[in-house]
């Protein structure tokens, strides 16, 4: 792929695939940072019933998964892991007691993962006991220490988040001064732009947020009461989901005006909720020093060797021996139809949206009140109405300057919460790209015989045996996973990479076991004994060229009643051959007086239209 990119080839594609990172937004706004502040008190290490992992163990698993996903998806982000309520202390100036900075704020690397692995499971608990221990708690000191971590960072931080993991709703055993100090420090942090979240875990007797933590955490974004009513996390998945939902700062790909016409404009942010994660491109290194090497591309004149500036070059394409030359600006201008934005065309019922009209992953829009005030209200009204009437909005979409338009369907989605009161689907419109005429290819359908009810029923049994509940995050990308395992092995000098579990491979044995004799039964119903679907196709039976030929082949296969009825309804029985019609009559036990085609047709029509 990389080679093909030369010579400005696929320039458009690149631009289109680049997302928020390219907008310059990312570079200017700095890096995201996340501090895990984990309670290391004795309570955290108590095992759950029935061998459930302790809260501490669960937290560590969760932290690990965030670390690995950060390495894969956003390796520039900074992460820190800090324990409080420890016996030992370890922090930059060792000015705080009972605060143990396990990882300072930094972009996570392979070593960090290894460090966390040490804290997992039964052994992890012992290791934690040995290195840190459990001691007194002062959340105030812990928060203060965290704020120092932030201020020690020289890089510009765009988004600062701190997550507190604890199962104790009351920290200082009634020590008002300590409570006060914690509150003050939390307020200080919040003032510097740090968002504090509470990831509270199960506690016998229930976790009462209002006792203490309600004053510590940041108010929820939307000022509704929802934020604090959340149940504590019981399961690892819940915790992971909740952490994951907060861990990434949602950043819009772009902000656009959404014009309803006649100057009625609202502002929306465009978000990418799903984007194909690809293996990052390789970095060139100097062989001797392993220093990263940059590439510089220069253009120079072939004859005089002078460096060519952008102005000294033009763009050209050759068609039918004729070279057509344009300025770079003109090449861009050709793609310009209008200013960026969404323009409403009208509305259509949802059933007009075809499942198979898919050309690109969808985007998501949400109102931007900071750009045009009143957007949210207008947006909500549209959302409610569209969803009530089961409609989608058809819009013309131009994502950025000098980009040709595409039509998109805005599909309404109302907010839904899952059992643990976490947002399962956010409110907003999905932006579904619609194909133009050019994007739809003419496919010659293969027309063949169809299955009988009996055959379909057998397949239904098979389907039933192999049913499962699909979840969109159930499959990991084996290519990516393998790549990172390889890197991990190389980085950590392991002998060989840890094997991955390829979830995309069918679990053949399990499937066979579940199916039992069904597979054979189905094959007996549809395949003749000598048929081998895996072999080369049998020599084509030579039949008439088309149309009639296909019908003749059906002679071998019994027609389903439904199919025949179809023919009756459409008066197309005449298209079938006499043998097929005869077979059909036999199948239904119809006595025929003659064997002429019309007679057979009449008899079948009589029988089937009853």
């Amino acid at each position, binding site marked *: 792929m990389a080679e093909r990119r030369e010579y400005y080839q696929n320039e458009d594609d690149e631009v289109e695939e680049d997302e928020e990172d390219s907008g310059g937004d990312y570079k200017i706004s700095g890096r995201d940072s996340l501090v895990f502040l984990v309670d290391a008190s004795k309570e955290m290490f108590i095992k759950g019933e029935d061998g459930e992992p302790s809260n501490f163990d669960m937290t560590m698993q969760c932290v690990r998964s965030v670390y690995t996903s950060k390495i894969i998806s956003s390796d520039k982000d900074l992460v820190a892991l800090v324990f409080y309520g420890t016996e030992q202390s370890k922090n930059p100036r060792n000015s705080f007691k009972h605060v143990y900075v396990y990882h300072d704020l930094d972009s996570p690397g392979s070593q960090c993962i290894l460090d966390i692995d040490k804290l997992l499971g039964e052994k992890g608990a012992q290791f934690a006991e040995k290195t840190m221990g459990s001691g007194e708690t002062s959340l105030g000191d812990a928060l203060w220490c965290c704020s120092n971590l932030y201020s020690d960072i020289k890089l510009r931080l765009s988004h600062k988040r701190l997550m507190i993991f604890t199962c104790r709703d009351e920290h200082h055993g009634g020590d008002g001064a300590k409570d006060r100090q914690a509150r003050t420090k939390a307020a200080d942090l919040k003032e510097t732009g740090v968002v504090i979240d509470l990831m509270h875990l199960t506690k016998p007797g229930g976790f009462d947020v209002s006792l203490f933590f309600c004053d510590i955490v940041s108010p929820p974004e939307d000022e509704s009461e929802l934020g604090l009513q959340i149940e504590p996390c019981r399961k690892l998945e819940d915790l992971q989901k909740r952490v994951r939902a907060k861990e990434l700062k*949602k950043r819009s790909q772009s902000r656009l005006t959404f014009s309803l016409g006649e100057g009625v404009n609202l502002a929306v942010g465009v978000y990418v909720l799903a984007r194909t994660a690809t293996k990052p491109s390789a970095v060139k290194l100097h062989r001797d020093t392993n220093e990263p090497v940059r590439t510089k591309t220069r253009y120079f004149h072939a004859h005089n060797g002078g460096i060519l500036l952008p102005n000294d070059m033009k763009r050209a394409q050759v068609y039918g021996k004729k070279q057509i030359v344009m300025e770079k600006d003109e090449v861009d201008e050709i793609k310009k139809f209008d200013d960026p934005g969404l323009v409403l065309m009208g509305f259509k019922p949802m059933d007009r949206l075809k499942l198979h009209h898919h050309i690109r992953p969808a985007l998501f829009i949400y109102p931007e009140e900071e750009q*045009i005030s009143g957007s949210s209200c207008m947006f909500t009204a549209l959302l409610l109405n569209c969803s009530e009437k089961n409609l989608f909005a058809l819009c013309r979409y131009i994502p950025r300057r000098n980009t040709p338009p595409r039509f998109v369907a805005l599909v309404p989605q109302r907010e839904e919460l899952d059992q643990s009161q976490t947002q399962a689907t956010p409110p907003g419109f999905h932006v579904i790209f619609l194909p133009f005429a050019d994007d739809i290819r003419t496919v010659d359908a293969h027309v063949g015989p169809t299955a009988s009810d009996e055959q379909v029923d057998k397949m239904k049994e098979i389907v039933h045996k192999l049913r499962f509940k699909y979840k969109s995050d159930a*499959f990991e990308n084996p290519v990516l996973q393998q790549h990172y395992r390889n890197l991990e092995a190389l980085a950590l000098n392991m002998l060989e990479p840890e094997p991955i579990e390829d979830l995309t491979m069918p679990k053949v044995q399990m499937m066979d076991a579940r199916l039992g004799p069904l597979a054979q039964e189905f094959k007996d119903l549809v395949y003749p004994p000598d048929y081998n679907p895996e072999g080369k196709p049998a020599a084509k039976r030579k039949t008439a060229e088309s149309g009639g030929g296909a019908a003749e*082949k059906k002679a071998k296969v019994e027609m389903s009643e439904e199919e025949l009825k179809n023919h009756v309804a459409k008066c197309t029985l005449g298209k079938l051959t006499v043998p097929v019609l005869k077979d059909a009559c036999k199948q239904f036990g119809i006595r025929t007086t003659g064997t002429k085609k019309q007679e057979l047709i009449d008899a079948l029509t009589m029988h089937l239209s009853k």
Partner: protein
Amino acid sequence: DVRPGALVLCMDVGFSMSNSEPGQEPSFEQAKKVIQKFVQRQVFAENKDEVGLVLFGTDGTKNGLAEDGQYENITVHRRLMMPDFELLEEIESKLQPGGQQADWLDALVVCMDLLQEETMGKKFERLNIVLLTDLNVQTSADQLDVIIDSLKKARITLQFFLPFPVDGEDRADGGGDGPGPSAAPVRPGKGLSRQQTQGLEMVKNIMTSLEEEDGLEEVYTFSDALQKLSIFKRIDRRPMAWPCHLTIGSSLTIRIVGYKAVTEEKVKKSWAIVEAQSHQRDDVKRETVYCLDDDNETEVQKDDTIQGFRYGSDIVPFSKVDEDQMKYKSDGKCFSVLGFTKQELVRCSPFMGSQVVKVFAARDDEHAAVALSALIRALDSLKMAAIVRYAYDRRSNPQVGAAFPCIKEKYECLLYVQLPFMEDLRQFTFPVLENNKKFKPSESQLSAVDALIDSMMLVEKDEDGESVDVFKVNHIPNPQFQRLFQCLHHRGVNPDDPLPPVEPWLKRDLERPQAVSARCQTPLQDVKTKFPLKVVVKKKEQKTSADVFGNQEHAFTLTSIPCEVSHFNRRSLFQVGSVNPVRDFCTLIRQKTVSFDQACQQLTHRIEQLLGNRSPEYYMKSIACIQAFRDQGAFLTGIFRSSGICSSKVKNRPSAHVELKTSCLQHALLFSDALTLISKDEVDGSTFSKQDANQVLTAFYSLQLTSFKKFV
């Protein structure tokens, strides 16, 4: 090795084609445009199909069959060839109305003869004849059966383009995905001549005998063709067949074939770089060099580089060989069922990838057809979908996707769409909307939007109560191609002209339908009054030089320069300190505790001091100082002049610039617009001419460029 098609465009140029109703374009012009656009598309899409052009109704006669007064006034203008620019130019200049009439059936025979002759010994995937005529000529039908027969034998397909629709009914389009003809504007039978009525019958006769009931779908009107060039699709490239096995468990296998049914069509040709004067590609050489990220940008030979990958904060050296050896290996193409699930569960998930694949049973394998049919029907009746592992071939990455059942009147298939991997998903949480009191729309607002939606429905009921979609996106050709071809064509023919504007019809295609626009006026006004929408004025926009210089009141972007005394300590100042020299300087000038002269001297001193330290913070501070100087300078031009201090102060500035070159330069970027020398235009007393200022600026810009490269 896709074998191209062969196509003959057969156009009526007879005199009746030039007739037209008042206010309407003559058929000749319309037909010419159709041909022009078609050929344009063929040329620029670099379609390999060969195209011939036959004209009938011409004054002269030139064809291989002309003999004894037969096949007269029919001209083979161009034999089969790949369409090129020349053909485009010829159509533009040489395609003129003729003064004769010729039998269109005769013309058809000439075309068939041409096709047969030219394709002799070569194998073409498709043979097609496109007839553009108004049918307004006496035709002898006695040979019709023979003609139809030989068309069938030679497997030649036909398309007709007429000025009027073949019948008034709007046929529902076939499978819902292929574009079909749209509703015709004129009813047939009205105002048609006897010959036309008769001709139309013959057209129907031919088309139905060629393609049975679908034949009439290949008869179009000129206006249809102009609006929707996509109807030329049938001569477009066919998707490649992808034969594979669908497997369920280890023992159940069905032979299948997949086709890309929907995928984003991209512009195929890229732009080459040519030298601006010579327009020669070879005059431009491209060179890529590798260099270390140090101050000297030390160059490194390509052979001395190895590849590595980022793993979080680490970069792991990982050679190409190792990578290939250790990477994930897929065991070839597959379409393996992992399990079955409810369709609704899959529909909630985002679809990934850029295509939809239609999966059929292997061609001519009736057993596979039955087996696949059983699966399709089972899934359809259970409202379930198959989750499959899909790999195109050994080299490609495996995907997980869903196969949905699709049962159409004429065929059945599975529709495969890629689903996301866990790594692809980003779970964002958005603030509540509908239960948020701040944003909750009122009843009247909701009903205003409700009325707006009703007025803007793009699906309408026709006389028969059938819903008709008035804005089918999948019938609109991608305007990007049309525009590109238009510009290329224009530039090819007129190399020195500026690019033409977007064609009006193309723009119109992208607009809201007029009827809808008209209908929604009132509801839209209502919405406008009921919803207060106000653009929020940003307080902190990125500054341009105009902002900075045009408005002296503005504070500096990063280091604010408070100009109002009340903002800070009113305690009298006597000296420009080092902590906040700008503020001190401003205060001194306002408070007049020291002379302006002295204040300036003190600030200059501070700038020199600051530049002595080579750290970005100090650097920024000094920039701010210079800025303050300039602001106050322009503001207090009068004082500058009278005190005569200006020149000495400004003279200090070039030295500052020299210093800047050596200090950390990355920040210069942010200030590029803000920092120029005070030129004569701004301050009368300045000894710097505009040229001087510009000179320094140019040097500055080039510095920024290098520093930019270095730091970004």
